[in-house]
């Protein structure tokens, strides 16, 4: 049964899809969400709402996803296993689905050590693959993980993340296969900077036929400054930024423009890789750049389906 989300429709139509990330505010102002959503409205097919990203407390992805739905956008509600157990996660899914949210992204979640409550107790009742299974079970059998039936339709387009760049590299395609088997419909990858590693991973993905089971969207992070490039290379675990890219940023007279140029090049490059069905642009705190990148990469206008 189709979930009926715009993202699903664009992918089903065989179009190259675009999603973008919207970071909810560290406060109560929904106006911030609205402003960012309007920037993204016409340049992507669905908008991801992060769930206390990097373990920093922000407005909930559930509240923001519902708000975006009411604004007529197609939200992707991110859900991490760090903060909520299977009761809370399933309850949130019921609320979101009831309000018309159709895309759900299942994540483990950054460790709380990185956030603003490092003394918190984490949950991890489920892991991300089990969360996919639980959601797929709800969708396909209309039953909770615990076995009880519930009422009402629950159309869901289920997403998951994949990191082709983290150790152990040969295991990464296996983990993707598990996510596909658990019931994932689409995948958004970690930021791609190293096309060689990404290309090798995609070859493994195709060899297993996984690109036909899940729609793979390559993660794109536009670099805003030399500092960001260096920081991502040196301090963000599981992200590979080749020195060549950092050097380009360092040598550029206008690093911001160079970061945008690199992002457009990366979009062009991943688009040429067989099996890549879209891009997921994560312009953390720099949402304004997304329409520019989409335009320059020839991804506009977005299809109306």
């Amino acid at each position, binding site marked *: 049964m189709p979930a009926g989300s715009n993202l699903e429709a664009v992918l089903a139509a065989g179009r190259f899809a675009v999603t973008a990330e919207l970071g909810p505010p560290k406060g109560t102002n929904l106006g911030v969400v609205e402003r960012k959503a309007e920037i993204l409205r016409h340049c992507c097919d669905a908008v991801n709402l992060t769930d206390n990203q990097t373990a920093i407390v922000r407005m909930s992805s559930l509240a923001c996803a519902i708000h975006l739905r009411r604004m007529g956008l197609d939200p992707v509600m991110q859900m991490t296993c*760090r903060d909520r157990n299977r009761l809370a996660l399933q309850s949130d899914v019921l609320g979101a689905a009831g309000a018309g949210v159709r895309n759900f992204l299942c994540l*483990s979640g950054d460790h709380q050590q990185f956030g603003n409550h490092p003394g918190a107790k984490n949950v991890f009742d489920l892991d991300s693959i089990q969360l996919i299974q*639980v959601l797929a079970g709800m969708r396909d059998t209309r039953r909770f993980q615990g076995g009880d039936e519930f009422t009402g339709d629950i159309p869901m387009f289920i997403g998951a993340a994949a990191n082709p760049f983290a*150790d152990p590299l040969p295991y990464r395609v296996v983990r993707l296969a598990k996510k596909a088997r658990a019931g994932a419909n689409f995948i958004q990858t970690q930021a791609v900077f190293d096309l060689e590693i990404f290309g090798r991973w995609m070859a493994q993905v195709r060899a297993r036929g996984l690109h036909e089971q899940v729609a793979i969207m390559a993660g794109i992070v536009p670099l805003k400054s030399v500092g960001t490039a260096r920081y991502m290379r040196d301090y963000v675990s*599981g992200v590979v930024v080749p020195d060549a890219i950092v050097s380009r940023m360092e040598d550029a007279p206008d690093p911001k423009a160079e970061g945008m140029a690199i992002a457009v090049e990366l979009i062009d490059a991943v688009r040429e890789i067989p099996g890549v069905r879209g891009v997921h642009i994560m312009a953390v705190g720099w949402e304004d750049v997304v329409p520019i990148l989409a335009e320059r990469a020839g991804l506009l206008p977005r299809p109306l389906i």
Partner: protein
Amino acid sequence: MIVAQQKPLEEIRQMVRGFRRLLVLGCGTCTTVCFAGGEKEVGLLSTSLRSVLGQEIEIEEAVVQRQCEWEFLDQVGEAVGRAEAVLSLGCGVGVQGIGERYPGVVALPGLNTAFMGLTEAPGIWGERCMACGDCLLHRTGGICPVARCAKSLLNGPCGGVQDGHCEISVDNPCAWVLIYDRLTQQGRVEQLEEIIPARDWKASHSGGPRRIVRPDLRDMVGEEV
């Protein structure tokens, strides 16, 4: 073994203040092996306390083989009887054992009980088991992701692995990299294709405090279950 670490002296000093007669009681098993609560540590801590508390307090020292068994705790009944408080250098089980056997005396923790683990190298201990109550080591190459992965993930590593270590610390090897390497070495890496579904955590502490009753052993001692 149960691995523990002595509390800061200042915290212990605050804890024992006001008591005139203190028994510092070591434990001859786990905390002796991890150099936190054996005879030597009992002696050193008692000396330190005498020097910071002076005449305020009279300190007696003793060590039992295990603070978690009545038969050993019974051997120090007289010394406990002379004390107002017992500062245990056993694990949290030992502190509570003293309290249960001698409810009239104040049992105090001299250690922080850290984890169940092993000695990785002299002076280095690492966690290996969280007593989740439903062992799955046969499915994970003999390496426990519940205890050794910072997120207790059961289906492979998260995206935060860098150079084989966990995103939270370079000192923490990624459990799933260890599992992957071990199973690769054993030629059993295809085991990692299996999905481990959502667990039943009832057997863990989530199911409430745990207790085991063995009717066969109860029969042997002639008591009713």
